[in-house]
């Protein structure tokens, strides 16, 4: 009995702290950036905030941004470790920014390490940088917020306003590996004039690389609605007439209250076609031309909006097909439900050629508290 106690307590007390990872002994990395390096290597940029302790709450903060050349992300991490005190740990990373050039190659090798190690934060936002990720991380904004908070704030705002899908490392993983399904990632850009970082549309991916083609920022809301995704607010501002002299009078702004999206895929022989139907129930939030109390005006506006949005949807589809980015996973559905058709087709070649007909139907339900 005595021996047992001795053995147990020795086991516990001597070996226990083996895999201890003291929080105070690590350097937190909240933002990571990857860029194309020379000779197929990568450049990793990390931003490490260090906060001095003061008697009341967190004190002044200093941020260290380090870039290193390396062969792989893990190698880069070792190299970063050599130049900072303690070791760095990306377990609480908030944003991963990938440079345009690196993304055009293939993003999976860069992200592999995140999926392999269970300590990593798979909730981290993923974003593309127009130009270099290093520049985004080095960006010195006037606002006192941390760069990680700044970027993740932009991305979350974009999701809330129905501009982006809110892709994080976890969600991207499945789409990255699955053939016949593609995705899009928000694009960030530095606006030198106003000295801010800006959301700049959605970068379209084909399988595991960035195609170099974007959905522009002002069309992303419709792009999201076409995917059947709606954030907290989905606001569309469209020009509906040329009648008025005052330019502002020609525009209407609507909030989407309810949205329904349906994709019908037809596959016969060697032709695949798809019908995309998007039903939008909207509330008018801005329309200086007014007269919405009359049902004729409303009807007219409904029709006009439907027309405009359908046309825009066609444009978006054209961009997607040009990029060969199969966001709707039509390829997978064809493979699943019409395997004989899929066998005949080389899907990667076929997708840009298939016919996708969008039909956006807008119905105004509310027009605010004035008539």
């Amino acid at each position, binding site marked *: 009995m005595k021996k047992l106690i001795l053995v147990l307590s020795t086991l516990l007390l001597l070996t226990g*702290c083996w895999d201890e990872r003291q929080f105070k002994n690590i350097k937190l990395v909240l933002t990571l950036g990857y860029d194309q390096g020379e000779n197929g290597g990568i450049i990793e940029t990390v931003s490490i905030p260090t906060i001095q302790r003061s008697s009341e709450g967190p004190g002044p903060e200093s941020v260290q941004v380090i870039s290193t050349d390396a062969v792989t992300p893990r190698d880069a991490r070792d190299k970063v470790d050599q130049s900072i005190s303690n070791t760095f740990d990306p377990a609480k990373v908030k944003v991963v920014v990938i440079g345009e050039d690196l993304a055009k190659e293939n993003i999976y090798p860069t992200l592999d390490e995140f999926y392999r190690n269970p300590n990593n934060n798979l909730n981290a936002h993923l974003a593309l940088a127009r130009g270099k990720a290093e520049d985004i991380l080095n960006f010195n904004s006037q606002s006192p917020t941390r760069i990680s908070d700044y970027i993740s704030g932009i991305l979350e705002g974009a999701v809330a306003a129905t501009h982006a899908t809110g892709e994080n490392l976890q969600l991207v993983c499945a789409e990255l590996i699955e053939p016949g399904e593609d995705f899009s990632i928000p694009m960030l850009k530095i606006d030198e004039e106003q000295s801010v970082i800006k959301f700049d549309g959605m970068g379209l991916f084909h399988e595991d690389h960035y195609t170099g083609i974007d959905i522009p920022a002002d069309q992303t809301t419709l792009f999201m609605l076409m995917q059947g995704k709606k954030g907290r607010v989905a606001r569309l501002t469209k020009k509906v007439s040329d009648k008025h002299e005052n330019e502002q009078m020609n525009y209407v702004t609507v909030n989407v209250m309810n949205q329904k999206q349906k994709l019908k895929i037809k596959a016969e022989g060697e032709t695949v076609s798809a019908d995309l139907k998007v039903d939008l129930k909207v509330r008018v939030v801005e329309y200086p031309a007014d007269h919405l109390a009359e049902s004729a005006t409303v009807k007219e506006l409904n029709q006009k909006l439907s027309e405009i949005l359908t046309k825009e949807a066609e444009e978006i589809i054209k961009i997607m097909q040009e990029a060969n980015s199969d966001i709707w996973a039509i390829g997978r559905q064809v493979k699943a439900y019409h395997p004989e058709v899929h066998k005949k087709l080389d899907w990667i070649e076929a997708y840009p050629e298939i016919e996708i007909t969008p039909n956006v139907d807008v119905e105004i339900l509310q027009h605010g508290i004035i008539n």
Partner: protein
Amino acid sequence: MGFWKRLFFGDHTKLEDRQPNDTKKEPKQPSSAKLSANIDYLMNEFNRTSDLKIRILKKGNAALLYFESLVDQEKVQEAIFKPIELGDVEDISNLPHSKETLNLEEAITTLLRGHAIYMEDGSRKISQFKVTSSFNRSPEEPANEKVVRGSHDGFVENMMININLIRKRIENRDLNVKYFKLGKKTNTNVAVIYLDGVADPEIVQQIETRMKDISADMIHSPGYVEEFIEDQTFSPFPQMLNTERPDRAVANLMEGRVAILTEGSPTTLIAPSTFFMFYQASDDYNMRWYTGTFVRLIRLASFIIAIGLPAFYIAVVGFHFEVIPDDLVIPVKSSINEIAYPPIMEAFVMVVIIELIREAGIRLPQPIGQTIGIVGGLVIGDAVVRAGLVSNLMVIVVALTAIASFVVPSNELSTTLRLLTFPLIILAGTLGFVGIVFGFLFILIHLSRLESFGVPYFSPVSPLRIKDLKDTFIRVPLYKMNERPKDSHAIQTEAVGPSREWKKREKTGKPQTIESGTNQTTGGDQSVSSDSSSE
């Protein structure tokens, strides 16, 4: 008639005064007719103790003996000398309220109980008078079990008063009190109280057997009794409920449990008890049941906080900082960044400091105790953080833990909780979350295994009995608790009959036809049971 009846049918033993304890087993020393021989014998037996007072009366032919330390002089005057002075009785030995014996050993026990004895030369008769003095404090509310609403009296050091407080609350012929004399040298009076016909006789029997087995010189307090008769002395959990509140004792008696009272201590032991009994307070039953439930849930949550919070914090900062929410990462990091010691040391230091402050506060008189609280809590707490010895988060964690441990209505369990924190801290500091899981597992297994007088300690959760959960995590309205909990092993299970039938009657619109005084059970066809009222 009585004489003939007794001669033919009755037993032929002589009727005797009822003694609290059986005196027949005691050794007999027949008194002598010679006064001096009796006095010599008594003096020798008492080793010529100085406070044995001997008053020689009738010119050396009679003597009155008593312990002046046990006897109320006024009562002596009132009971013995006054009747003589007034001329009601001629001789002290003829006083009607005296109790007579011919056994000197019996005289010794009564002397020790505070009686005075009177002996005359030429007679073997010893007259005993009850003139005991007793010093009682008033039955004030116990300081460690205060309630907001409800009765504000408490047990005192005198067992008779305590039993009185219980009998006043249960006017029932089935309330049974059994006296024991425990402690070979101290002869402490201990009473076992239970409600006959409700309490399980087997448990009563078991308690009695275990009490009779006690062979110690001294039974100093209920804590002694507890350790002699409880099932598992090596368990950290108390297996008998300690209370100083008559209402709590009575409620438990009514559930079919047994109370053990000790002379000289206001604490009553309740057995068999379960884990959840320690979380019930008299207050719960005096509030609205929603509030009662809410408070009960908070108390039970405090159990987890009290034993698990420091361990959880240590595991998080030492092993799994991924679980810290994103927005908290920077504040947490900044507060622990420059602390010299590992979190497990921090926690140990802070927990020990809190215990020091608490222990110091208890022993010191009230005004100094407060000063200690302020110095310890505020000054040390603040300074320790400013000096960078302990992170301010750890101070928050340990303070919360200490508060949570004081929430338990029973001081017994509260100390247990504070002790259980330590193994969990060590486990968390060495193995992280895995350690905490193992620790809780051990505690849970132990709780499920533990028994108190043959009753599972962790019931009604393990073994699960959903019906009895009515008064554990939640407190349902009282009329819904119609059955006694199974864990008390009560042989009469029904506690509350249908008591709210009036509501049904109101709904059906049937007029209430009770004519006052004549017939109380008019609604017989509706199976309205008025049995409880006519009992």
